[in-house]
């Protein structure tokens, strides 16, 4: 009798651990979405800037705000900087996509594992009731 109730307690402990893992996974997924949103907005803004820069003549004056200082920049340099930033943000978004997929798979398998443990607990309790 005592062995089956320790087994039951073990199963319940396992369930609790898995539930904690699941909630951590869900928090990670939510954070991923937040960071993704921020990067997407930045990407959009940078693409707008690039479009504006493309419309300029070669001799137009471009200035960059660095802290409280407005610094004159070369048009080619500004173009290169914005393009590099767009590349970086796109790469980050792709990386986030990959890790999001990974997290969602883990979440799915964690949910299945939890279901299995719950079923084992139920059959255990049913077995104990009969005996």
């Amino acid at each position, binding site marked *: 009798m005592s062995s089956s109730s320790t087994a039951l307690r073990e199963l319940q402990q396992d369930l609790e651990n898995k539930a904690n893992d699941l909630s951590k996974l869900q928090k990670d997924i939510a954070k991923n*979405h937040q960071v993704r949103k921020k990067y*997407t*907005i*930045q990407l*959009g*803004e*940078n693409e*707008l*800037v690039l479009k*504006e*820069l493309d419309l*300029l003549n070669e001799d*137009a*004056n*471009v*200035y*960059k*705000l*660095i802290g409280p200082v*407005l610094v004159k*920049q070369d048009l080619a340099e*500004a173009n290169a900087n*914005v393009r590099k*930033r767009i590349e970086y943000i796109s790469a980050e978004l792709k990386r986030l996509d990959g890790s999001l997929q990974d997290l969602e798979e883990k979440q799915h398998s964690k949910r299945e594992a939890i279901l299995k443990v719950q079923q084992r607990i139920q059959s255990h309790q049913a077995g104990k009731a009969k005996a």
Partner: protein
Amino acid sequence: MASSRGGGSQQVIRSGDMEKMSLDQLKAVKEQADIEVNLLQDSLNNIRTATGRLENASAALHDLSLRPQGKKMLVPLTASLYVPGTLDDADKVLVDIGTGYFVEKTMAEGKDYCERKINLLKSNFDQLIEVASKKKTLADEAGLILQAKLKQSSPSS
């Protein structure tokens, strides 16, 4: 800039499907649709504010173009400190194009920039309104079906 992307995971739910759903599922659908409608309304308001600011900028530009060179003016140094100055060259304007970049443009180009931005925002606004009204109809339908089902399950009240 307000982006016109919808929510993350969107499912296309037809009204036929909603008839078959249970009460709980219907409630979840309606709540989800209501949240999305609110988000879309917020985005619409943001676009409206941004458009208003751009139109103010455009009006200010137009006013500036009417002023002669050398005109006496008061230049704000802080929110409560102004110093007298003279208007130098009203043909060149500095335009903030985003991410900390400023471009020197002529008055005509500056006005053109404002117009372009306003048109872009207006088209975003129109797109969003379409999406928002579709979501709202979905939310309203879900609400109606939910009420009908509630009445069905408790006829004697």
